[in-house]
């Protein structure tokens, strides 16, 4: 990242770090959701399985969006 404005580079890094922290939080929620859904299904209640899958899909799309944001910011930070 040589020959770039330090402030632009710093802003890019802060944005990337923030997005990564958010991704980690969403991932933790997804892990909890999977374990709760599995426990509920094994207990014989399959009513919550479909809503859980939909919500997990939404979380995954949010993570995917944040991932593309990180890639975009990383690329723009490297451009002089």
């Amino acid at each position, binding site marked *: 990242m040589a020959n770039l404005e330090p402030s632009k580079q710093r802003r890019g890094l802060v944005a990337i770090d923030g997005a*990564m922290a958010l991704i980690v939080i969403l991932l933790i929620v997804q*892990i909890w*959701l999977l374990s709760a859904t599995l426990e509920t299904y094994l207990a014989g209640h399959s009513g919550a*399985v479909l809503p*859980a*899958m939909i919500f997990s899909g939404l979380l995954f799309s949010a*993570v995917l969006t944040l991932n593309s944001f990180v890639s975009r910011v990383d690329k723009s930070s490297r451009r002089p």
Partner: protein
Amino acid sequence: MSLFRSPNEEPLWKDEFSVFTSDERYVTRRQFTKFLTLASLGMFVGNLWILLKSRFAKTPAFPSIEVAELNEIPVRGVKLFNYPTPQDHCIMIRTSEEEYVAYSQKCTHLSCAVYYSAKNDRLECPCHQGFFSVEDGSV
């Protein structure tokens, strides 16, 4: 090039060997984020698998068996039996002259064997004082 190197200098092989292990192990932010996205996809696929299993898994059909004679159990009496396998303990209660109910004897909490309390007219778990309705088995 000096033939003798001082002890504080880097060894000669480090000058000539161009592969640096620390650089090889370095993970960029983009790579780490991709890994997290892959983990998120794995969680989503796990939920999808549970959904497919709940929709398409076939519940096994067990044959009906004779548990007791018609007037063998008195009103508010109990009979224990095993169904569908010898490891599945069940309890049958005659709630009135015409009505019989049967449930699995396993408590939904930690699988203790529940018993029928005629005094309270409910199923009770001795382990952690759980109670179940005789009418429909609800907690």
